[in-house]
């Protein structure tokens, strides 16, 4: 039950840079104009970030993950329910991995 001084330094350093970056985004947004290009840019960030988050996982996924992604999308479009979509994706990937063994 101890932490070496070196480990402590590394952990505190990690914590400081992390909070500094997270806070900077909020503080810098305050300096951006609320109209025109900057405002349009901020509006487009959520969709673009989410697309960037999921695209590589699907593009490099196994066939099991491709089928599960399709199932997730179809269930969400049909039900508009996030939890149902997530659950069917997880269930689909479980079944497909069992079946394909990959």
């Amino acid at each position, binding site marked *: 039950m101890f932490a*070496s001084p*070196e480990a402590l330094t590394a952990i505190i350093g990690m914590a400081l840079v992390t909070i500094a970056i997270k*806070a900077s985004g*909020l503080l810098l947004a305050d300096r951006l104009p609320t109209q025109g290009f900057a405002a349009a840019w*901020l509006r487009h*960030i959520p*969709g*673009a970030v989410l697309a960037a988050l999921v695209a*590589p996982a699907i593009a490099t996924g196994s066939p099991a993950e491709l089928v599960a992604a399709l199932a997730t999308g179809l269930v969400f479009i049909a039900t508009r329910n996030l939890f149902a979509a997530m659950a069917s994706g997880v269930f689909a990937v479980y079944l497909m991995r069992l079946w394909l063994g990959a």
Partner: protein
Amino acid sequence: MTQAANPFDSRRDQFLAGARACLPVAISVAAYGLVWGVLARGAGLTLTEAVLMSGLVFAGSAQFVALDLWTATPATLPIGPIVISALIVNLRYLLLTATLRPLYPKKGLWRSALSMYLVTDENWAMTVAAMQRGGGSVAFLMGGGVLAWISWMSTNLIGYGLGSAIDDPARWGLDFAFTATFLALLLGMWKGRSDLVPWLVAALAAILTSRLLDGSWHILVGGLAGSLVGAALETRKHVRQS
């Protein structure tokens, strides 16, 4: 204080609503949390070090990268590279927290900046989705953040305690919860054909970047490319119309 809209009640409701919204993703946080706990023990972190890192840093991807660089002997610990890679891996948060600005009052932003500590990919995504439906609030964001923090910390501890005795979460498909939820959130953000090009640009840029570079660069590069293209298309359209 007899008004129906008691600010404390609505704040509590928002906090609970945020936590509830994050339940689906808390499952994937928990699955990754278990894995991180197991790996942290394997990498030679003491229990105290693992608890401190999860509690203070609270950023999954940066913590996984740190485990790659960690050494069990303190004298050889590469402190500089560990801190710098945390900085690089977390750069994407600049984009995420910038979009949360509308939740906060005009003045006194510096005091609010500390609450960004509780922002993760998961509660950020749920909150911007709620904002697009006209909802979302700081309390909503914090509700999801606290739930994510609890599920991250508790599963880190379980993983550390049980070591490799635990089952691989991938066997149960739990690793896919993250992709599935974010995919559904993305589809929920569809507002029309003007989203198609920015999303495709973001996706392609992210796929290319993930092939070339490890870590979380693909989120930053894809997010920047897609949102800039979206903004360029939108402002060009306005110029033409006026």
